[in-house]
C-alpha cells in the first residue's frame, strides 16, 4: 500500500513559505519557456493561416522570396493557360500577376518606421484569396492611387486609417479601406491596383510573382511539376502554404535563445527543488523511520517523496501557466531577414503549450526529487528513529 497522498499534501502545507518560494522559482522558469513557445506558436499560426492549400506561388527560378523575384509579364501570359488552373464563372483562368514592393511606415510610436509589403494586384487576385474581405471602407479603383490596408497595420499605425495617406516613390496614395483575412499575414500588407503601381515604379513589364489556383489537389501537384520543369518559363512553383511555412524561420533566433535560457534556468530551478526536498527529507528523518516501522517498504517511501516533489513542481507549473496567460493574444511584430518586411502576429497560449509547460515542470520536479527521495528510502530505520 502506498503512503497516503494526504501525508505529502500536509507536509507541503506545513512548510508554506518554502513550498511557495520553490514553486515560484519553478513557475518563472516555466513562464520563460511558455512565452517563447507562445511567440513561435502564434507566428506559425499566422503563416499557416496565410496560404490556401490549392494556391500555387510562381517565382523566378532561384528566387526565394517575392521581393527578390522578377517576373516578366510575357511569362505570365505564357503560363496562365496551362492545364490544371481553375477557371472562374466567366471562364478566365484564376491566375493573378502581382507586384510586391516594400514601403516604410513611420509613426509617432515607431520613429524609424517599420517595413510592410505593398502589393499590386488585379481583381482576380482578390478572388483568389478566399476569406479576404473589406472590413471597413471599400476596395481601390483601378487607375487611381488608392490602397486598402490590412487590419493589423491599421490597428498598429492609426495614421494609416481610412482617409490617411501612404507614401510610395514620389506619390501619395489614399487609404480607402481596411481589409481582413482571418489570421493571415495579408493583415500585415497593403494592397493597391497592379497597373497603377507598376507604372509608378517603372515596372510595367517586370513584376514580382504569379499566384495561381489549381482546380483540385491532384492537378496542383501536376501543375507545380509542369511549371518547374518548363525550361522556357524558367520559374519555380511552390504551394502557397509551403512558401509561408518557410517564413516561420524568422523566429528561429528568438526560439533558440529562449529555449537555451529556459534550459539553463531549468537546471537552476531543479537545484532549488532538490534543496527543498533534501531539507524535507532531513527534517523528517524520524517520520521516515516511523513509516518504515509501520511497514511501508523502501520503494513506497521513495515513491512518496518523489511524488511530493512532483506535487511541488505541479504547483509551480500551474503558477507558470497563470503567469503567461496575460500574454495570450498580445500583438507584436517580427521582421523577416528574407523580405525585410514586418509581420504582425499574436502570442498564442494554447492548452497544448500549457501542457508542455506542465511536463517541463514535472521534469524539473522529477530531477530535483529523485536524489532526495532515494536518500530517504535508503535511511537505516534505527538511525532514522534516533536522529533529532
Amino acid at each position, binding site marked *: 500500500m502506498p503512503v497516503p497522498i494526504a501525508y505529502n499534501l500536509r507536509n507541503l502545507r506545513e512548510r508554506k513559505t*518554502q513550498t511557495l518560494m520553490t514553486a515560484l522559482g519553478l513557475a*518563472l522558469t516555466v513562464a520563460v519557456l511558455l512565452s517563447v513557445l507562445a511567440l513561435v506558436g502564434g507566428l506559425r499560426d499566422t503563416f499557416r493561416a496565410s496560404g490556401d492549400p490549392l494556391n500555387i506561388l510562381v517565382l523566378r527560378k*532561384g528566387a526565394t522570396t517575392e521581393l527578390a523575384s522578377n517576373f516578366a509579364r510575357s511569362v505570365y501570359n505564357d503560363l496562365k493557360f496551362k492545364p490544371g488552373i481553375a477557371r472562374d464563372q466567366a471562364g478566365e483562368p484564376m491566375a493573378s500577376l502581382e507586384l510586391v514592393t516594400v514601403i516604410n511606415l513611420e509613426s509617432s510610436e515607431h520613429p524609424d518606421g517599420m517595413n510592410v509589403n505593398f502589393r499590386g494586384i488585379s481583381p482576380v487576385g482578390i478572388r483568389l484569396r478566399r476569406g479576404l474581405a473589406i472590413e471597413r471602407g471599400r476596395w481601390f479603383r483601378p487607375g487611381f492611387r488608392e490602397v486598402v490596408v490590412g487590419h493589423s497595420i491599421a490597428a498598429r499605425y492609426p495614421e494609416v486609417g481610412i482617409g490617411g495617406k501612404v507614401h510610395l516613390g514620389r506619390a501619395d496614395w489614399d487609404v480607402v479601406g481596411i481589409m481582413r483575412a482571418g489570421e493571415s499575414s495579408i493583415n500585415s500588407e497593403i494592397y493597391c491596383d497592379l497597373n497603377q503601381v507598376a507604372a509608378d515604379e517603372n515596372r510595367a513589364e517586370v513584376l514580382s510573382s504569379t499566384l495561381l489556383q489549381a482546380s483540385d489537389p491532384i492537378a496542383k501537384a501536376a501543375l507545380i511539376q509542369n511549371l518547374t520543369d518548363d525550361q522556357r518559363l524558367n520559374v519555380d512553383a511552390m504551394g502557397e502554404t509551403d512558401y509561408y511555412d518557410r517564413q516561420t524561420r524568422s523566429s528561429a533566433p528568438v526560439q533558440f*535563445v529562449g529555449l537555451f535560457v529556459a534550459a539553463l*534556468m531549468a537546471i537552476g530551478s531543479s*537545484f532549488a527543488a532538490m534543496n527543498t526536498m*533534501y531539507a524535507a527529507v532531513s527534517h523528517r528523518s524520524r517520520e521516515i523511520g516511523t513509516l518504515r516501522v509501520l511497514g511501508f517498504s523502501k520503494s513506497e517511501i521513495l515513491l512518496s517523496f518523489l511524488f511530493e516533489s512532483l506535487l511541488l513542481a505541479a504547483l509551480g507549473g500551474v503558477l507558470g501557466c497563470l503567469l503567461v496567460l496575460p500574454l495570450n493574444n498580445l500583438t507584436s511584430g517580427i521582421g523577416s531577414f528574407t523580405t525585410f518586411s514586418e509581420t504582425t502576429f499574436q502570442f498564442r497560449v494554447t492548452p497544448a503549450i500549457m501542457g508542455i509547460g506542465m511536463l517541463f515542470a514535472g521534469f524539473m520536479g522529477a530531477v530535483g526529487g529523485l536524489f532526495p527521495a532515494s536518500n530517504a528510502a535508503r535511511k537505516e530505520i534505527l538511525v532514522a528513529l534516533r536522529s533529532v
Partner: protein
Amino acid sequence: MFRYLPLILKSSMRSKRRSLLTVASAAISLSLLGTLMAVYHAFYIGEAPPQQALRAITRNRVSPAIMLPISYNDKIKQVPGVVEAMPFQFFGGVYKDPKNIFARYAVQPDRLFTMHADYTIPEDQKLAFQREKTGCVVGRGLADRYGFKIGDRITLKGDIFPVTVELKLVGIYDSLFHDDVLFFRLDYLFDLLPERRRNKVFAFHVLADSPNSMPRICKEIDDQFRNSTARTRTEAERAFELGFVSMLGNVKAFLLSISLALTFTLLLVTANTMAMSVRERVREVGVLKTLGFTTSAILTILLGEAAFLTSLGGLIGCCVTVLLVTLIRRLPSIILPLSSLQLEPSVAGLLLAIGVCIGLASGLVPAWGAARIPILKALKFTD
C-alpha cells in the same frame, strides 16, 4: 566584518550539499544574466570600435532590399568630409548547402582595404585581388571554418541574383571583428547579370574623415537624394547593424524581461536556502548570544554567509559568461554586433555586485528574525 570571516566560512560549510547546490544554481543564473547583460551592452550601450565609428552605410530609405543606382557613389564622394565611398552588393546565395551561413559581398577591389583599414592582408594577395576578375578574399575565421586555402575554387549559387559565380580564392585577411565574410568583385557580378540589373547595388560604404563629422555627413548625403526617385538613408555602420537586430522583434523587452525573471528566480532560490539554513541554527544563535555576540554581529555572520555563497556563484558565473560570450562570438552570425561581443569589466563588476545584492536581500528576512529572537526562546527552539 572580516573578524567574522572564519565563522562565515565555517557555517557555509555546514551543509556542503546545500551550499554546493546554491552556489551552482547561482553560478548558472548569473552566467546567463551576465551573457544577456553583455549582449544588451553590445546592442544599446557600447560604442563602435574606432575604425567602425568612421564608416557609414547608405541604402534605400524604404528597404535595404531595393537597389540604388551605382552612380550615387560619385555624388556621395563629393560630400565634404567623405574620404572614400564604395558600392557594395549583398549577394546572398548558397555555398554548397543552405546551412552554410556567412556574408558574401560584391565590392570594388581597389577600395575594399581603404574602407576597412582594420583588415590586414599581405600586399601580394591584395594585388592579386585587384588583378583577377574572378578572385575573392575571405576572413581568417571563415577560412579556418571551411578549410579554405589560397587557390581554392568557391562556387556560389545565387538566389537574389539569377547567376552562379565561380570564384578563386586569392587572399585571406585578418581582422579582429567581421572575419567571417567573403568578398568578391562587383565588376565580375555585373558581367554575369542581364543588362537591366547591372549598375544597381543595395548599399554604399562611406568612410568619414572623423567620427565627429559623421552626423553631418549622413544628413548631407540624404539631403542630396531627397528629390530623386530612390531616396536614401545613411547611418553609421553600427546603427545599420542594429537595424537588423530590431527586425527580430522587440529585443530590448525580450532581454529585459528574461533578465528580470532570472534575477527573481535566483532571489527565490537563495532566499529558500537561507531560510533553511537559518532555521537550522536558531539554537546556535542563542548560544552565540549567550557568549556575548551582539545582534548586529549575528546579523553580519548570517548575511555574510548568504553574500559569500552568491558572490562565489557570481565569480564562477563570470568565468562561465566569458566562455559563453566567446562561443557566441564564434557563431556564424548574421547579427553582426554579436561578432565583437565581449564581457566588459564594467558589466562583469555589475554582475558581481548583483550577486552580492541578491545574497544580502535573500538573507535579510530570515537573518533579521533570527538575530532578534530572545536568548531563552532561541535556546528552547526545536525544529
